[in-house]
Every structure is written in structure tokens, then in C-alpha cells.
């Protein structure tokens, strides 16, 4: 597929309220830049992210989906991210199995103190998705503009 020079991907980031969303806030407080095409959705915990949401994002035109949560062991709810870890691992594996680019999805553990990591992760993920090009394998043509 030809990569459009002008391609700016749409990226959905699910961030848990206690660590990663706070990390994203800290990244803002420290004025650490990352591209504007990353849009964050606040969820209470990474374990709130239903595979349906991830597929929904791709359906509606997202080019990449990243899930950020507390580091394993640091979950505000003790165990949420452990479940999230298994669910996302298996889901990503399934998407890969179906031939959908595996690098369109990512899980990253970002603590409330890791504003710099949040920004760096987003910059890296945006670069990765930009290189991959638009999501064509898991989009719903009806939703295209």
C-alpha cells in the first residue's frame, strides 16, 4: 500500500484514570509535546477496556489503538491490569492471526509519575502508525467520509 505523505493517523488512547491519565496530565503540565492526533479516552482502569471498544475504534476509522494502564502490581484496583494484560494479549494475537497489522495496537504501562514516558510513547506510537499507513483491514467502509 502506498503511504500517503500527508497521512495523519487517527489514534485512540484508552488511559486508566489513576496512572496513565494522570501521566498524560503530567506530560501536559511539563509541556511535553506529542502529536494532536492522539485522543485520550478516560477509563477507570485498563481492565475496563472491552475488546469491543478497540474494534469499534478501528471500525470508525482509527488507525491505531493504544491502551495505557498502571504498571503491573500498581493497579489502583489491585488486579485490573493483570486481567487487561491477558485480554489484550489474546485479542492482539487474534487480530494478528487474522492478518491485521499487529503494530496497530499496543499496551503500555504508564504511571502517574511518568509524564515523559507518556509523551515519548505517544510520539513513538504515532510514528509507528504513520509508517504503517491507514487502517484498511479493519475499517467499516460505511463509516468512511
Amino acid at each position, binding site marked *: 500500500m502506498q503511504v500517503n505523505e500527508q497521512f495523519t493517523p487517527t489514534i485512540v488512547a484508552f488511559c486508566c484514570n489513576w496512572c496513565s491519565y494522570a501521566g498524560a496530565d503530567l506530560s501536559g503540565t511539563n509541556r511535553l509535546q506529542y502529536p494532536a492526533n492522539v485522543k485520550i479516552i478516560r477509563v477507570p482502569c485498563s481492565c475496563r477496556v472491552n*475488546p*469491543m471498544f478497540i*474494534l*469499534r475504534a*478501528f*471500525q470508525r476509522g482509527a488507525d491505531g489503538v493504544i491502551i495505557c494502564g498502571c504498571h*503491573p*502490581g500498581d493497579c489502583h484496583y489491585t*488486579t485490573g491490569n*493483570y*486481567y487487561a*494484560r*491477558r*485480554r*489484550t*494479549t*489474546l*485479542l*492482539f*494475537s*487474534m*487480530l*494478528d*492471526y*487474522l*492478518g*491485521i*497489522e*499487529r*503494530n496497530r*495496537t*499496543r*499496551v503500555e504501562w504508564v504511571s502517574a509519575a511518568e509524564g515523559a514516558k507518556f509523551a515519548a510513547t505517544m510520539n513513538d506510537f504515532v510514528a509507528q502508525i504513520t509508517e504503517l499507513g491507514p487502517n484498511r*483491514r*479493519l*475499517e*467499516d*467502509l*460505511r463509516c468512511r467520509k
Partner: protein
Amino acid sequence: MQEVMKKRAIELLSDGTVAKVIGWMPGEFSYDMTPAVFTTAEEIESNFVYNDFCGANVSKYVMREQKKASDAKILVFLKPCDTYSFNQLTAEHKIVRENVYVIGVGCDGMADVEKIKAAGIEGITGIESDGDKFIVKTVYGDETIARADALAERCAACKSKKLTVYDEIIGEDGEVVENSGRFDLVAKLEAMSADERFEFWRNELSRCIRCNACRNVCPACTCEQCVFDNPKSGIDQKAAADSFEENMFHIIRAFHVAGRCTDCGECSRVCPQHIPLHLLNRKFIKDINELYGDYQAGDDTESKHPLTSFTYDDAEPSVIHERGNE
């Protein structure tokens, strides 16, 4: 075997141990058995059948019968793979075990008429089992096919001949099959490039007509109302109006049964479009086995399944991005 089963069913009905019997009744041809519920000895005498074409997994019918107002005790005949489903249903409180009398039926694999037809045999008017082969009578003359070639796909890669739950056994109990080869096709797909995998699945899933047979037959699909049927869920779909929806339905369905799917293979058996849906479930099973340790749903009725448990040092999702073939 059929006669022994009939005898026991009639005995248990007559002595009041059970009030209903779940088994199979004959069809129009020699291969189209229908799961059936019997309540009288006469019905069993005249209409109970058990042969090489009783592949249908009847465990879910136990749940259905128990949903009815009556709490009458039920006799069910379960093949080894059906017992796994039965256990899983019990674990999820879908079956009240005390109200069921389980007769485990030893099994050496079921035949699949699709395989016989795929071998080019048309106009079938009768099938007779003859040792390691079937003699198939057709309007175009008699044919024979090796039993192994007529075996259902799932039986050819049988995971276990062990009866995991029973009150009594008819026939021979077997063992878990080591190296069943059931993941061979999954591994083959994994070894392909992403583009090849995408092509493969597009070709398969694009045939989906959303008849919901896979879901409705699945012993793990026991929701009161499926999310895909519930307009309030926000993801309801009636037809695969876009290729995305084909993917969505099958990914989510496989995910919802991941860790709970016993790999009974009913989904692929019933698909009118012959989509190898079991390859989706087996992918999850293979991943679970590799990442979190061997797990067989329906082995027992106690353990927490892999998606409702964890260990502190589980693999990170990045293993997906780091492994072999892209």
C-alpha cells in the same frame, strides 16, 4: 451399542430415575440424525437412534430442558467431547448437575456426511458401516469410503476420548489424546505472512451469512440475549453489512468463549458456508496453552478459566509484536 443405550434408557425411565431422555432420533436419510427428547419407553423403542452420524453435541439441550418450568430429572447420553461441554455448563451454573443422570458413551469418532459428499459421492440413499469402511448406496450405484476418510474433521484431530463426567458408562472410556494434531492448521496459519493470513480469513469470513448457527449451537454461548441481538448493546448486527462486521462478529464471539470453549467443534460442523470457525477458537486455546499453561475448559467444574485469572508474571502484550511472522 444403540440397543444397550435404549435398554438403559427404558430402564431408567421405567424405574422413575429420570423423566426425560435426551438422545437422537433418525432422519430422512441414513445420516441426518436429530437431537431429541424422549419421555416414554415407546418413543425410545421406536425412535431412539445412535450411530456414526450422531455427531451433534447434546449437552446444551440439557440446559434448555432445565430452563423449562419442570425440574424433572433428565437422562442424557454424552460422548467424550460432550462431557467437556457439560462440565463447562455446570461450572457456569447453566446445568444443575443433581438433576441429570449422565451416561457416558465411549466414542471412536463420528462420521460426517459432508466428507462423504466432498469425496464425490452423490445421491446417497443409504450408508452401512462395515468395519473400517462405509458402504454408501447411491442412486448412481454403490460406493465405499474408508472410515478414516469419512471421519468428521474434529474427530480426526480428537483431543480426548475421556469421559470427564458420568454416572455410568456404556462402551469404553478412553484417554486424553496426546499430540492430537488439532493445532496443526493453526500453526500453519501462524507461519504464513500477515497478508496471506488476511487473504485466508477474508476468503473464509466473507462467506458468512450471519445465520447465527455457530452461536446458537455453541454450548459456551449461553447468554440470555447475545450482544449482537441486543439493540441496547450498541453493537447489534443482523447481517454482515460490511466486511468489518464479519470480522467483528467472529472475533468477539471467539473472545467471549475464549477460555470457556472446550473445542467441541460444533461451530464448524453447523456452518452452512463451511467456514472453519474452530480455527478461531483453537487459536485462543493454543495461545492460552502457550502463554498461561495448558488449560482444557470442561476438564472439571471448579477451576477459574484463564481469562478470569492471572499470574503476576504473565507475558506482556508485546510478545505479540515481537514474535515470528508479521
